[in-house]
């Protein structure tokens, strides 16, 4: 599939912005400047970048505990994200939500929540709203392999298919549900097949290949817009950091989970390096352009941290504001 230069640049920019933002949080987390639990998205950038590029501004997405990438890829403001993580009033959730509750309704980012599988039904509701209004929007839910253990996923697969709702199920299979390898969670490991009993087109793709993610996502979104119902996409990917925080959970460390060789093999499949190599070897975009994008991302990150550090925390007297509207 041929893609425009601006689209290719967009993929690169989206991934680099996410990586730069995530890695900028490592030190503040270790120094306890950032205290709220951060589930870093490094390594999985191609999923958010590819899917969100297939959506329009008015389309809806819902995230999960690991959603900095979804929020940024949907076009939401990085300074408000970092301010939220620092617990500031200027954060996207006014310091009430932290890293796991990111929102920007104007950009179609309708929220994120760490209850595993908890936002699958919410995205289905947004798709239902679009269907009732006939406004041609599409709703996407991002969830992990761990969510395939929750019953509500299957309720939603059935109902979304039954009502042909404009909804895309994106399962980011990073092979670990917190500490538990997916092979120990599931008797059957072709996750994409969970969509098949519900007569839903279901795919398993290389989630570290942003072009593959985009092309599959675009096909799914087009299908939704034609009223042909939901699509299930399993994106196989890997987190470069720990389940929560910067620790990468390599065997031998205190959060002993993943074999060193496994982590190393996935580092070889870094979605950003792979895409950069593709762009350069096919002479699609010049190195200096990529360098500029990288430089701009680093500057944006620095601005975001300056913004957060100069922003006040919420006032104690406002503790119970926002319980009811």
């Amino acid at each position, binding site marked *: 599939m041929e893609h425009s230069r601006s689209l290719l640049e967009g993929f690169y920019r989206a991934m680099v912005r996410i990586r730069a933002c995530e890695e900028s949080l490592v030190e503040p987390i270790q120094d306890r400047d950032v205290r709220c639990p951060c589930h870093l998205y490094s390594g999985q950038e191609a999923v958010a970048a590819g899917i969100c590029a297939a959506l329009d501004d008015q389309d809806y997405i819902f995230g999960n505990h690991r959603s900095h990438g979804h929020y940024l890829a949907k076009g939401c403001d990085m300074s408000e994200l970092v301010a939220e993580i620092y617990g500031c009033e200027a954060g996207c959730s006014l310091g009430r939500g932290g890293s796991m509750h990111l929102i920007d309704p104007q950009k179609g980012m309708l929220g994120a929540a760490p209850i595993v599988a908890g936002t699958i039904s919410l995205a*289905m*509701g947004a798709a239902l709203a679009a269907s009732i209004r006939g406004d041609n929007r599409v709703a996407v839910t991002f969830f992990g392999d761990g969510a395939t253990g929750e019953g509500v996923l299957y309720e939603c697969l059935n109902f979304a298919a039954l009502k042909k709702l404009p909804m895309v199920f994106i399962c980011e299979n990073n092979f670990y549900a917190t500490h538990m390898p997916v092979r120990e969670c599931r008797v059957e490991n072709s996750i994409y097949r969970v969509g098949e009993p519900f007569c839903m087109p279901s795919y398993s793709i290389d989630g570290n290949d942003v072009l593959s993610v985009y092309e599959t996502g675009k096909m799914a979104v087009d299908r939704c817009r034609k009223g042909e119902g939901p699509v299930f996409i399993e994106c196989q990917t890997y987190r470069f950091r720990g389940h929560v925080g910067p620790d990468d959970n390599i065997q031998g460390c205190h959060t002993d989970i993943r074999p060193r060789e496994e982590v190393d093999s996935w580092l070889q499949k870094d979605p950003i390096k792979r895409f950069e190599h593709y762009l350069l070897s096919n002479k699609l975009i010049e190195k200096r352009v990529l360098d500029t994008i990288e430089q701009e991302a680093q500057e944006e990150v620095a601005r975001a941290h300056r913004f957060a550090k100069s922003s006040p925390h919420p006032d104690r007297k406002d503790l119970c504001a926002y319980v009811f*509207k």
Partner: protein
Amino acid sequence: MSSNRKLQYSLAINEALHLMMAADPAAFLIGQGVNSPWYVGNAAQGLLERFGEKRVIDTPVSENGITGAAVGAAIAGMRPVVVHPRMDFMLYAMDPIINEAANWYYMNGGKVSVPIVIWGIVNRGGEQAAQHSQALHAMFAHVPGLKVVMPSTAYDAKGLMIAAIKDPNPVVFVDDRWLHRTEDVVPEGIYEVEIGKGIIRKEGKDLTLVATSYMAHESMKAVDELAGEDISVELIDLRTVKPLDRDLVLESIRKTGRLVIADGGWKTCGLAAEISAMASEEAYEHLKAPIKRVTLPDCPAPASDTLEAAYYPTAETIAQAVRKLVAWR
């Protein structure tokens, strides 16, 4: 005269749904059995024919997913009413109700509220046993971010359903099947009963009796009987469980000095316990006697009707509690 029109409780809810769905294209009804009298009786009649299956959505038995969908639709700008024809089955939907709907506005810094009505019907009696009879309003009232209403009359059922649909927050609307056939004068157009406001059903001076939902009816019978014994009871029907109309209750206690609470839920950590605690925290110096709770015992609902008769409080149970307190010292 239309101003004196009487209407059944269930039809008052039905009229509220008709009016609000006609007035607001964002309003819709979703849940198990909205197309079947087996589940919600006549409360949903005529809606499917009038508004079509896009807005009157009968669903498979998937309470968690469907309630979550209603929450998500509300986040995306709709005004859903999701019905649980037996409140017991609502327990499958605790995640979207509590984790998501109740918390959403707060944890997102007020960016998006969740204007949803979660309608749960209590189906007590009828030898239906422990999983078809539970009144769970206190569990929901415990959670910040949820409003809980429990109308006892057809007038209030319509006015509170309309207010709940218009409210920008999640509202748990609890009705009792035993009320569905009761009748009341119900105006025809759109009107609201304000959420958070109780009502004095009968003024009195000797004792304050606070009740909700079906227990308000039993309480009224008790009050009438006690009047014949020269005991003057002030009956407050809370109508809303959360937020509580604290001022109304406290003002009455300051006047009478005695308090009985009649609630159709369990005793421990229940609504009656909450009102009792509020009274002792804020009106202690006005109390002339201990507070008495009339509730279900801490026991699941039985099947056998002999046990049911012992399980559910009646007007007589309430009257006995009142007599005891009035005779206190």
